[in-house]
């Protein structure tokens, strides 16, 4: 079957492992572009959040290339994300496409569909093979995220501009081709060596900023106007708090092992005085991470939100109070389908200038 997975950040590293190696034909959606966004915006409901629109654009582009099955993650609320697949399916059916929507989610009583989907993805291969492939894919994601975190540290310290991004991209394309765990280990070593070579150790005491907020926007550079790169080139070390590991990890590791929840628990506890209950999505996590960022001594936090996001609007409201109470500067960037970057650049630069001045003042006072 010709299958397509939507894009998000560097998720393409698992395309081959999960689709081609399982004997399916991979239809790779073209890299997210202005056209993707335009298609999504044209057909999606007006007040839906941006990720739905971009992913819908991915799907339309994949269907144009002949995809027969679309793989999408699901969920059970209360964030709208859990309902994306249903709405996207409706929109695409209305547009006259013929396809099968394969929703990967925790089955709630609906084991029949779950088994069907699993069998479809398994494609006649053995269960053992399938599980080992998924484990490989998971390791790939973990490695990808380790490199992503590393490149955020290296980028503001690089000797020549652009070297870190280049090395990172190379690493990603190698991960994509890797066939086993040993290869992944080798890639990690190699890439880290390159990173070491290009790092200028003279640069110390950089401004450090936490990147919090909605999951997709913070992971997908197209949607956030390459925020991480921009901050890196402004000489800022970004600490990105969202990751696929933190999202899927607890599910993969099963809830039996309490240790795997430790980080999540810390975040919840940090958020507790301000928001006492999870509100779905990353609402509570965002607040918790900003409190933790303050405890870790970071200079500020940037929250990214798609316009109309429900949990993040709750978080934004509460962040104002957190920022006042803890005296940590926060900047909220709201993304919609407009693609004028200059406004964002100005706001970012102003925010970073503010952080630099604050630090200078703190040094003078001490």
């Amino acid at each position, binding site marked *: 079957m010709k299958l397509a997975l939507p894009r998000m950040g560097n998720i393409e590293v698992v395309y081959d492992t999960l689709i081609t190696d399982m004997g399916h034909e991979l239809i790779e959606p073209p890299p997210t572009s202005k056209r993707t966004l335009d298609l999504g915006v044209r057909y999606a409901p007006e007040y839906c959040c941006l990720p739905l629109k971009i992913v819908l654009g991915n799907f339309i582009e994949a269907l144009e290339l002949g995809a027969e099955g679309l793989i999408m993650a699901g969920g059970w609320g209360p964030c709208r994300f859990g309902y994306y697949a249903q*709405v996207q399916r409706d929109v695409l059916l209305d547009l006259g496409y013929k396809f099968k929507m394969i929703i990967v989610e925790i089955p709630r009583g609906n084991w029949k569909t779950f088994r069907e989907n699993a069998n479809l993805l398994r494609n006649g291969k053995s269960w053992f093979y399938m599980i080992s492939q998924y484990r490989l894919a998971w390791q790939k994601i973990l490695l990808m995220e380790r490199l992503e975190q590393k490149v955020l540290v290296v980028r503001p310290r690089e000797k020549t501009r652009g070297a870190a991004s280049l090395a990172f991209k190379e690493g990603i394309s190698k991960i994509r081709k890797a066939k086993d765990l040993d290869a992944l280990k080798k890639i990690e070593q190699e890439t880290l060596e390159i990173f070491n070579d290009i790092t200028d150790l003279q640069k110390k005491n950089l401004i450090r900023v936490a990147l919090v907020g909605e999951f997709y926007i913070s992971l997908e550079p197209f949607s956030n106007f390459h925020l991480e790169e921009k901050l890196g080139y402004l000489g800022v070390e970004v600490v990105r708090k969202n990751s696929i590991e933190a999202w899927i990890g607890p599910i993969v590791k099963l809830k039996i092992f309490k240790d795997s929840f430790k980080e999540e628990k810390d975040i919840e506890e940090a958020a507790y005085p301000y928001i006492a209950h999870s509100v779905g999505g990353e*609402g509570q996590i965002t607040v918790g991470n900003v409190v933790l960022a303050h405890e870790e001594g970071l200079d500020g936090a940037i929250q990214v939100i798609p316009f109309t996001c429900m949990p993040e*609007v709750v978080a934004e409201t509460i962040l*104002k109070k957190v920022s006042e109470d803890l005296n940590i500067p926060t900047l909220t960037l709201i993304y919609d389908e407009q693609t004028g970057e200059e406004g964002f650049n100005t706001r970012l630069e102003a925010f970073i200038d503010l952080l630099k001045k604050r630090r200078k003042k703190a040094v003078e006072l001490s």
Partner: protein
Amino acid sequence: MSKKRIGIPYALYFYEYYPLWKDFLTRLGAEVVLSKPTNKNILDLGIRSALSEVCLPVKVFYGHVLSLTEQVDYILIPRMVCIERGSFFCPKIIGLPDMVKASLDLETLSPIISPLIDVRKPYGTWQSSLFQVGKLVTENTRALSRAFTDSWENFQKNYVAHILDPEILKPGPFEPSDRRAREKLDIQHPVLNIAVIGHDYLFKDSFINLNLREKLQNMKVRVLTPEMVHPALIKKQLKKLFKPIFWSPSQKVVGAAFYYFENKVDGIIHLTSFECGEDSMVGELIHHQSRNYPNTSYTEFVFDEHTGEAGINTRIEAFLDMIIRRKRYEISLTPYG
């Protein structure tokens, strides 16, 4: 000892659950102060204190909370999470007490009590959260449980089981006594069954929806609401969905919309508010379903903080005119094509 005054902001979920809380607290001997129906002043208060990204109903809620200042000893803002396994309220409602605490000046407000309602947890059932509030009024456990049993029964009997009168969907029982008027009416303006679908806090708040119900009724429209559909029928309709909806308030909206589609009402108006996350998704589901029923017209009204009525008047008139014109056109065709 004077009576404890407990304030209830008349907005959001309280349109549904106010009777229960009031009944329970009055039985215990507390005084329940309900904020006034939404007016310009309340709306302005809310808009001023909320972030611009927050949705309209929550802004209105802020206004109601502020309007209760200095009138009450406590303000009741329950944290509604889950009233039925597998479905939730929207994130903004779950986080409502925190949002209110974060953005309003707590020193001038009366203390906020926010019992948790999450029926999946033993400490989040209706009983325990009502008790939690009731304990502010009386320590007497027997009085508490008696008040709970009575008010819960009352609530179930009078407010939950709204059963649709089957007569209501039969076509054309509207009969003026004057024969001439009747003829005129039949041709020019048949009685229309229009279902107005939307959250209670939009449909019942006539300030926010700009008197929609009255306007429709003045135009000789029979207004049908989601409440007229029996919960069991709603459940049945929801089985049509590819995936169950996990927001309790929207379940009612979608189920009722599907029910009215199936029962061939003349038109369905879906009320939504600006920035409402649930409605943006749910609206698409209803829209998608509407294509299967070409004889039922469907439209969507979005409400925001503007209070100009002309726009909504035009849209109502246009919607009704369209339906009437089509009906007339259908009548003038012979059944044989």
